[in-house]
Structure formats: structure tokens, C-alpha cells
């Protein structure tokens, strides 16, 4: 599907063009109120704040912060309704419990029209308070990306993420770097089953649908490393399909991207490591720019040594783990599409340092 674009029906146009109302409603619950207070009530304490987590209570982009604002509005309305209903229930049970000594029936009340009207209308008011900022954020967050937004093509695979940067003309896997303060337009795709791209603190979530291109646009506002994970069930190793988003300063990002876009130097193709890589048929699925290895079935390995993790964000990238992976991929990632090539120890001993050297 192409970009949904801005195609509101008349009602939503009316609602979302009352400019003051949504802003006013969102101001009802200032950001800090939710972000600071709710953690204190204890939920978030358990949910684990700080460090690199998946917590949805910490937003570090415009999108995730705005979502938190609406969540805050609903949270307080919900809390009030919860206390109201449970309060009435508990009071009624305590107050009207039968003693067993009653001789007459209680008053046989069949209903009360004003009360019925009351509890029909009151929720409408509350729902309007939720719906107006909701609808305004739907249109705002799904608007066309700016012309200068950084485009990242994110493709879900079984079971890893491919990230392509058309602006710099390179591909990488499982680690997505984005610049601070510049809008990013992630174009989500899949060529197999449905996956979902979920990075709670930066990008929220959207599905990677086969045959469609979905978008997430956001502007990150804090440098750091953020976690992400596939959220749509995609068979065997769904639980092990993770990724990272690194928010870098503009300079760092540019440096990283230019380095990733560079091909490996001449000697790599002639090295004994590459010969072993080729001899072990790795070339059938993997690409290393600057060599004859150009297949793109598996992750691009041009700069694999520069990545912090392997096997889609589940193992630290070191020689011991690379060795484990090459020995039997399916033992680490059940159902892995990378076959067990039955490599000899000699082959592994040559290939592992070679891969680590691809910085």
C-alpha cells in the first residue's frame, strides 16, 4: 500500500481543525505529570526504569512522547472510573449485605430514567476527551514525512531485520543508527511473513506487511542505545528477533553512515579468511562489499565486525559467540534459515577472525 496520506472524512476534519481543543486537552495532563508521577506509584518501578529497556513509559522521540501524553489522559480517566465502580461495589456489598433477619423485601426499584440518561451521557463526555487528542495525533503522526527526512528501508526477515540507507547506499542488519533531531522515515516491508517493528522508546510499533510499505516517522531527541523486538508472531524464533536503534549526534551519524557505505579494501578479497569464507559457501547468501561476495539472502557482512551484537541482537559480537553460531546456527536460533554447514574446526578458526576483522 502506498502512503495513506491525509484523507480525513468530514467529521475528522472538523474535529482535528479545532486547533485549540486538542492542544488544550493534551495540556490537561502535562507530560512531567505522567512521566514522573506514575513511576512513583510503583508500576514503573517494577517495570524497570533506566538503562536500555523496552519500557513504554520512557519516550525519547516526538512520537513516543505524544503517545505517552494520550496514555496519561486515558490513565487518569480510567483510574477515576475504576475507583468509582469498585468503590460503589464495595460499599454496596458492605452496606446491603443481608442479615438473615429481614422480614420484608427491599424496595422493588425497577429503574430510573434520569439515572440511565446520566450514565449514558457522562461516558460520552469522557470519550470525547480521549477521542479528540487521539484523532489529532493519528493524523499528525501519519502525515507525509518531511522532504529532508532520513529514509531507512527496514525489511523483516525470518528472523532478523535488514536496514537499508538509500541516501548513503548501503545495507546493514539488526542495528539501526539514526541522527539526533532529524526526522526519520522508516519504511517497513517484508518479503516473507508478517513481522512488527517495535522500539518502544523511539519508534513505537508498526507491522511489516508482505506486499506493502508502512511508515513510522519520528524525530529522536536523546542520544543513546535503544532496544527493539519483533512483536508479530513469525514462527519458531519470533522470541529471538531483536534489534537496536542507536541515536547518534548528527556528526557521529554521518561518520558512521559513510563508514558503513565504504567497501572493504583490496587485501580483504585476497585474504585467507575470505578464501575460507568463499570455500565454505558463505558467499551463497552473504554480501561483503569490495569482494565477489554479493548475495543478499542473509545479512550484509561488509562491516559485521563493527556491530555490537550478532544473531539479531541476542549474542554479543565476540569470537566465542561467532564460533558457536557457525558451529550450529539452529542451536542458537531454532529454525534458523542459515543451515548448519558442518564446518571443520579449521574452517571456523579461519572464518571467525576474518569476520571480526570486518570493522
Amino acid at each position, binding site marked *: 500500500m502506498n502512503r495513506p496520506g491525509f484523507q480525513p472524512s468530514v467529521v475528522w476534519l472538523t474535529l482535528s481543525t479545532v486547533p485549540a481543543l486538542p492542544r488544550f486537552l493534551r495540556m490537561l495532563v502535562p507530560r512531567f505529570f505522567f512521566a514522573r508521577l506514575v513511576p512513583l506509584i510503583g508500576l514503573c518501578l*517494577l517495570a524497570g526504569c533506566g538503562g536500555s529497556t523496552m519500557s513504554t513509559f520512557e519516550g525519547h522521540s516526538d512520537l513516543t512522547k505524544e503517545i505517552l501524553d494520550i496514555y496519561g489522559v486515558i490513565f487518569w480517566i480510567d483510574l477515576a472510573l475504576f475507583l468509582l465502580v469498585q468503590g460503589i461495589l464495595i460499599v454496596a456489598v458492605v452496606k446491603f449485605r443481608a442479615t438473615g433477619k429481614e422480614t420484608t423485601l427491599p424496595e422493588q426499584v425497577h429503574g430510573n430514567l434520569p439515572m440511565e440518561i446520566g450514565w449514558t451521557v457522562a461516558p460520552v463526555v469522557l470519550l470525547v476527551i480521549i477521542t479528540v487528542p487521539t484523532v489529532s495525533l493519528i493524523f499528525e503522526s501519519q502525515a507525509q514525512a518531511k522532504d529532508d527526512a532520513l529514509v531507512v528501508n527496514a525489511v523483516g526477515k525470518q528472523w532478523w531485520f535488514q536496514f537499508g540507507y538509500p541516501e548513503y547506499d548501503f545495507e546493514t542488519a539488526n542495528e539501526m543508527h539514526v541522527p539526533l533531531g532529524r526526522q526519520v522515515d522508516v519504511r517497513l516491508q517484508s518479503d516473507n511473513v508478517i513481522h512488527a517493528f517495535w522500539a518502544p522508546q523511539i519508534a513505537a510499533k*508498526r507491522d511489516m506487511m508482505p506486499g506493502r510499505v508502512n511508515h513510522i516517522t519520528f524525530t529522536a531527541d536523546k542520544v543513546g542505545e535503544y532496544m527493539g*523486538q519483533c512483536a508479530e508472531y513469525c514462527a519458531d524464533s519470533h522470541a529471538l528477533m531483536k534489534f537496536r536503534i542507536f541515536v547518534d549526534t548528527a556528526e557521529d551519524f554521518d561518520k558512521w553512515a559513510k563508514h558503513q557505505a565504504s567497501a572493504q579494501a583490496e587485501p580483504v578479497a585476497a585474504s585467507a579468511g575470505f578464501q575460507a569464507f568463499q570455500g565454505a559457501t558463505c558467499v551463497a547468501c552473504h554480501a561483503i562489499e569490495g569482494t565477489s561476495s554479493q548475495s543478499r539472502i542473509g545479512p550484509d557482512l561488509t562491516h559485521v565486525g563493527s556491530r555490537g551484537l550478532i544473531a539479531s541482537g541476542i549474542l554479543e559480537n565476540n569470537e566465542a559467540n561467532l564460533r558457536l553460531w557457525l558451529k550450529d546456527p539452529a542451536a542458537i536460533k531454532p529454525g534458523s534459515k542459515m543451515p548448519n554447514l558442518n564446518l571443520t574446526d579449521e574452517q571456523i578458526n579461519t572464518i571467525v577472525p576474518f569476520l571480526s576483522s570486518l570493522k
Partner: protein
Amino acid sequence: MATPAHADPAVHPASTAAGSENQSYGAWLLSWIMTSDHKRIGILYGLSALFFFVLGGIEALIIRTQLARPGLHVVDPATYNALFTMHGTTMIFLGVMPFSAAFFNYLVPLQIGARDVIFPRLNAFSFWLFLCGGIILNVPFVLTPFVDMRVIPDGGWFGYATLTEKEYSPGASIDFWVCGLQILGIASMAAGFNFIVTIFNLRAPGMTLLRMPVFTWMTLVVQFLVVLSFPCITIALVLLLFDRQFGTHFYIPEGGGDPLLWQHLFWLFGHPEVYILILPAMGIVSEVLPTFSRKPLFGAPFVIFSGITIGLLGFGVWSHHMFTTGLGAAADASFAVTTMLIAIPTGVKIFNWLATIWGGQLRLTTAMLFALGFVCMFTMGGLSGIMHASPPVDLQQQDSYFVVAHFHYVLFGGAVFGLLAGIYYWFPKMSGRFLSESWGRVIFGLVFVGFNTTFFPMHIVGAAGMPRRIFTYEAGLGWEIPNMIETAGAFIIAFGVLFFIIDLIRCMMAKEMTAGPNPWDASSLEWVCDSPPKVHNFDITPVVYSDRPVFDKTHGLGPGYSLPVGHEHIHIPPPSLRPLFLAIAVAWFLASWLIAGQAMMLGVVSALLATAFMLYSCFSWFLEPGH
């Protein structure tokens, strides 16, 4: 008094709970297999549902054990995926739905003053077909050690294409799932039409639609949802079957299809299905709360019309399951608003229930405790539902454990609590015996505490970013403690269920029947009948004057109902094996597709034989005397 025309005790033992002493075991068994008595069929539905409920519960316990700590490997990932698929499928189609059907069957004819449903043998056919579907869904568990491919359904209960296509699920697992669901669909549709026609045509004189008990009303709404929504999944499954077995591309983008089509068809069924699961429980609670408050249901017409409104709106909200699929801003906004609208009739119901108990004389029996627990827990589920009704918020909650918490509050805290209230409430009517009230309190305590221990932390862990359907997770994300608590809670529920089953068996074996016709001082017509009721329910069809006939008459608040003097001809259809035959034939025919998926010629032969058997069953059914 009237003399029943077909009150032959050899085939219609007076007691529905057990055979009489002098009957042979075989004859007793045969009388259950051949029965077309709505009460016996209700009990059969209830016992099968209980069996499958325990099966689904065991699956849940294995899932929870695996997730107790990070990185556990109690079962391998493929088995884990099969277990959560079967847990969802079992609880929805084989647990809650037939449990509701047990109540529809047992109670609706009694509540409207009828002798049976309008098509008793079709009713038997529905049950046997349901059982065949349940068996076909679960048979892969037995089969799996003997075959060299995946056979246990493992595509999720939602079965999203393209994962369920041949390319990504090459074994027979999805074929079993498709076959089982198709069979269950036919069973539900047949029952749905049966009850619609029954409720519209067999009401006792004087029972206008608004005098009907709320439980019967909710049954009526549910049957309309069934007959209107099940065709959607039937079509979706047929298209999937064609994709898998004949190489079509309905859901495959490379061939011009679209996986989103599956999601639209599935959720156009799937969301009404949610109300198919919850409305019967709402009906039960609307009976239990007034009885044990000794007051009428507050605003009964509003409760009824809210139920109808929920049913209608239920067809206009399906895409809220698809907010993350990229439908576009206009669709997201529209479905957000329709979804929010459902909160209004739901709220109306909750407030009417609260107003019902307010000012009453509350007798806190186990049934009442479960009904109050329903109001309490269902409210929680409703409130968290409002959160992901907002699409931007859903972008953080969809497919996380927050959603798992939400729908368990609705379907366990709601539907299952309601059904348990119903069991405690109507068990004396069904058996003439009471379930233990003291054990009942213990069971309620265990289930209530266990339920909240299991499912409340899922809100937290979901907000902390834990996705659904993952067979393991890593340490250090704040997920360990909530998961440990959840697992402990699951075992508390298991103990509650275990005690419940022990008490159920104990009470069914007890000899003395002390309940009497109206032990709870209730209001609807089933409390006129004996406990357990006679085969033909009513000797004389009652005439109804109010919406609380029995309560009004007992307390002199009005005429309530009357039993006209005179004789009535009572026709009860003779027992028959034909419904069972036809159910087997239909299931066999559909299972032939399964065989065809592995060996085409064998499948065709099987289908032809099944067709022959189907024709035989149909014609012998029509030609059977006494019909």
C-alpha cells in the same frame, strides 16, 4: 394433570443426572448418545467444555512454567508455539463457547416455558459435530509422535497469512486447524438458527419479548452474532484451504493477493466472537445479581438494549485489531471512534448492575460472589480496553502482554467468572443438589486471587515492553519478577479449578436431592419446574403475566404466572442415532481435505465415501418414523 405421550422410562429416564438403578450400563450410555433432550445435550456440552477447559488450562500451565524464569526450556520453541495456538483455540472454541452453549441448551427452553428447542435433533447434531471438531483439533497431540511433520496447529489462534501459507507452514498443522474450525463453525451455525427460531416461536403465552429473562435475551443476541459472523471465518478458511491445496494466491502478495484480506475477514468474525463469548456471561450475571439482591434487575430494558447495541456495534469495530497494519489515518480514526462507542452500552450495563445490588438484601452465595467478581474484573478489562481503543496508544500495547492482560480480564475475569456464577446458580436446578457453599468460597477465593496474581502483572510486564507469543525472554529488562508472580498465580487458579472439579464430582455422586424447585427464590420460569426438571419440562405450559413471574407469584407482587387446568398433548421426539451419524459424516467429509493434503487420491476416495454416508444419514433421518 396431563399424561406425557412418550414418557417411556426405558429411553427417557426421569433423572437427567444419572441412569436409574435397574438399567444396564450400555442402555444408559446409548440413551445419552441417542438423546435429543435439550437438558441432556446441555449437560453433554457442559462436560465436554469442562474437559477441553482443563486441557486448555494444562496448556496454559506449561506456557507459564516455561516463562517463569528467563531462558527456560521446558518445551522447545516449536512446541511452545503450538501450545499457545492450541490454548487460545481451545479456550475460545472448545471451552467458553460450548460452556455458554451448555447454558443455552439447558435453560432457554425452560426460561421461555417450552418443552424443548424447536429442532431437537438438529440440536443433537450440533453437539456431536462440535465434539468431532474438538477431537480433530486435538488429535494431532496424539498423532505427533508417529508422523514426520508438524501436525499440531501452530499458526496462532488468529492464523495470520502469510505464515499459515504452505510455504511457511509446510506440514499438516494448519490443515488440522482449518478443518477443526470449519466443523465447529457448522455446529455453531446450526445451533444459532435453532435457538433464534426457538426463542421467537416457542415462548409461553404472555411472554412478550420484553418479559423474556435477560439471559434468554443475551442468548438471542449471541445467536444472531453467530449466524452473521461465522460465515466470514468460513470464507476466510476456504480461501486459505484453496491457497494451501490448489495453489491459489488469495493471501500471497507475489500472486496479486493480500495478507491483509485474511485479517479483515478473520476479525470481521473475530470481534463479534468476543461478544459471543462475553454476552452469555453478562446474561447470567443479570440473572444472578437480582436474585441474590432480592430486587428486580435495575433498568432491565436498558440492559437488554445495551446488549443489542453491543452486538450491533460489534460488527463495526474489527479493524481495531489492525491499528498497526497501516490502514491509513482515516480508517484508524473511524475505527477508534466506533470502538470508543462500545464503551457506552458496556458502561450502561455495569452501572445498572451496580444499581441492582444497591439497596438490596445481598446474600453472598458462591454464585453471587462470582457474579460480583465478574463486575469487578470485567470493569478492569473494559478500562484497559479503552486504552488500546486509542490507536496511538495501541502502537505501544498491541501484541504486548498488556493486551494479554486486557483480554484475560474480559474473557476469564468476565466470561469464565460469569459461567462459574451460572454453574453455582443453576447446578441445583440441573441436578437437584447443591454444590458445597463452604468449598465454593474457598474456590472463589483461589480463583479470584489466582486470577489477579496471574493477570495483573501482565499489564506491568506489557508496559515494560514484553511482546506476546515469545517462548523465552532475556534477563535485565524488568520482566523477571512479574513473570515469576504470574506463574505462581496460574498454579493458584489450577488449585481452584481442581477443587471445583472434585466438588462437582462429589455432588453429582451424592444421593439426596434437596434443592426443590426454587431454592434461591428466583424469578424466571425454570424455577417452576422440578429440580431436575422432567423430560418434558412442564406438565402444563404456564401463562406469563410479568417479567418476574415466579418471584411476583411467590411474594404476592402480582399474578406472575398461572398453570391453566386441563390436559395437554406432549410430544417428545423419540431418541435417534441419525444426528450422530450425520455429524460424523460431515466431519469425515471435511477431514477428507486433510487427507487430500497429504495424498490426493486417498482424500478423494475418502470424500466420496463420506458423501455416501452423509446421504444415507440424511435420508434415514428424514424417513425415520415418529419425526
